[in-house]
């Protein structure tokens, strides 16, 4: 018995010694570069799982074109079910067992925060977190590079659009009672202050609320002509249906999180027509050479996939890493890749222009403004617009 225990002890020690060795793998060899992404493929947030699959389309296209300096991208998607505990597990598995070089995307603020420090300690590059969480890049983390525009910037740009283009005098703000909604509200408030205006109503909502009558009646009673909303798809749907019930028809303006018109039009029974939203990527129906190429590739690699905003977001978030890897050349290393990421300037494909410096790892403050037309068509109202009130570009170190 003692011999058996002794042998098992030896095996355990050997196993423990082997694991860190695999974690120290560089994440690439002469034939491949290993890149990973977590995302909800099942569970309540599964509709956002298309982000990870969209990145996969980009890597398929890159591999079809011969890879990057002779190396093909080996891509790993892991389902974390939008559960931070699961995110930790799958990220550790990808780092320590598969030895990934970098991560891209990654849906969920809480999920990302759960692995942020771990990735930093293991010197794993993470490009394009799929959530506008300021903690990711303020103060700048050496290995994290954000593409997603901050909700504060988006709130500011959309409010400017409402005041200057829609000429609205009475504006309401309907926001999810968390960092997402509050950041949007803060941006809107700062913008309105420049016009010496205030929101006529600022109403918070919990993500699971099913009855919004009192909130909508409050907006109606305040005479809000335009209501900005930073909420989730279900709450937005209930809000629009409730307004139809109480005969209240404001102009709705929403954050980019609700810019998947195909989905929103369907679940609101057509009420989404006329809603204006921000957007962090080109309209999926835009006639652009690069977008057309991806559209054709999707028919080949993912014919069952819906060609929507979040699928394209996967390309937008992963694209800067591909660009940096191309610029590095054949002598790949984490340091060389970081150097290229830190010097990326005005890089633009189907998303906003992305610029990173060693001091600023928030890549953009720009969004487009779009409108949902009949049959969920995308109508571009305003091209890429940056937030002239964004303070982080001037004082990045002070932002928390």
């Amino acid at each position, binding site marked *: 018995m003692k011999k058996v225990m002794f042998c098992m002890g030896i095996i355990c020690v050997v196993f423990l010694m082997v694991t860190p060795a695999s974690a120290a793998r560089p994440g690439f060899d002469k034939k491949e570069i290993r890149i990973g992404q977590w995302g909800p493929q099942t569970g309540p947030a599964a509709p956002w799982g298309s982000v990870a699959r969209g990145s996969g389309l980009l890597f398929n296209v890159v591999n079809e074109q011969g890879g990057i300096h002779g190396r093909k991208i080996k891509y790993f998607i892991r389902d974390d079910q939008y559960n931070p505990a699961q995110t930790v597990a799958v990220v550790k598995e990808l780092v320590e067992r598969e030895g990934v070089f970098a991560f891209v995307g990654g849906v969920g603020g809480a999920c990302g925060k759960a692995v942020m420090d771990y990735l930093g300690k293991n010197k794993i590059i993470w490009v394009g977190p799929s959530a506008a969480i300021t903690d990711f890049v303020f103060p700048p983390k050496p290995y994290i590079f954000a593409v997603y525009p901050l909700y504060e910037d988006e709130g500011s740009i959309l409010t400017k659009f409402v005041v200057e283009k829609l000429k609205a005098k009475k504006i309401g703000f309907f926001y999810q009672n968390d960092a997402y909604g509050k950041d949007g509200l803060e941006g809107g408030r700062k913008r309105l202050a420049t016009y010496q205006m205030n929101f006529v109503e600022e109403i918070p909502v919990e993500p699971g609320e099913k*009855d919004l*009558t009192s909130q909508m009646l409050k907006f109606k009673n305040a005479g809000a002509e335009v209501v900005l909303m930073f909420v989730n798809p279900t709450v937005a*749907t209930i809000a629009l*249906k409730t307004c139809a019930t109480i005969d209240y028809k404001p102009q709705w303006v929403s954050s980019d999180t609700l810019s998947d018109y195909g989905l929103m039009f369907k679940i609101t029974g057509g009420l989404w027509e006329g809603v204006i939203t921000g957007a962090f990527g080109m309209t999926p129906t835009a006639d652009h050479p690069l977008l057309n190429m991806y559209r054709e590739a999707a028919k080949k690699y993912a014919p069952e996939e819906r060609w929507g905003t979040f699928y394209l977001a996967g390309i937008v978030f992963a694209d800067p890493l591909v660009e940096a890897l191309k610029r590095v050349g054949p002598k790949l290393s984490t340091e060389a890749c970081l150097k290229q990421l830190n010097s990326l300037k005005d890089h633009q494909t189907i998303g906003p222009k992305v610029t990173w410096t060693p001091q600023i790892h928030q890549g953009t403050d720009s969004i487009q403004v779009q409108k949902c037309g009949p049959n969920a068509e995308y109508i571009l109202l305003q091209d890429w617009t940056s937030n002239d009130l964004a303070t982080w570009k001037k004082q990045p170190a002070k932002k928390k």
Partner: protein
Amino acid sequence: MIEQLIVEGLAIGACYGLFGVAVAIIYKTSEVVNFAQGEMGMIATFVAFHVLTVYHVPFWLAFIITMVFAMLLGMLIEICFLRPAKDPTVLGLIIITLGAEMLLMGLAGWKWGAEQKDFPFLLSVQKTHEILPGLTVNEWSMGVFVLAAVIMVFLFLFFRYSRLGIAMRATQQNVNAAKIMGIKVERVFSITWAMSSLIGAVAAMFFAARSVLDPNFMMEPFMRAFAAAVLGGLTSIPGVVVGGILLGLIENFFGYAWPEWKPIVAFVVIIIIITVRPSGLFAKHYIKKV
């Protein structure tokens, strides 16, 4: 504005009450709180959605199919999950219902996916009628009022005068005595679960028409309906409906004045009432001697 708040509060409250009745029926018979109630309604609504959108049958036929499915589902859960438990405690049975809840949610996610869907319901929240100047009532609300009233009256009469209803009450009060009196308690339990599942499915379809259909859509309504049932009294069918209506009104008025406190105000009120009157507003308070 106040009239509109009242009408909308009554409507959503009646829907909470209706779903609360589904919870209360099982509790009346077995003293078990069925935490799978929301997901049973969710699955039934998905079945209705599937029949409507895939087979394009008329709504009335889809409704009948869904009701039959809901009853079978309720009986199936009782027979397959609860009945096999050996000498179960109430806590043990509640945990079994929690397991059933997770199973049903996983099943719906696997079959229909997590993406939200628009449920094509017969009564629309968008079709409104101006009953007084400035006061509109939508078809959805009118449907809830009528259905809640009909079901409440039916169940009240059923439990008071029908043999089966009396057998259910007897089973709840003392299972062994009910057996001695010749009541087939296992059959009573199955019928109870079938009835509860049917009423829950009707309420769930109303909730889906008001919001969106996805595997999680009944989680929050279940919490509210359970709260309404506790408020009114879990063993009183009219009490549960009145509890739901009170909840809807309190939420709407408080939510209008202080929107940030809306999600919790109902629960605060319930805690206060339960502290003062543990069995709820309308249920009789029984004390069991050991």
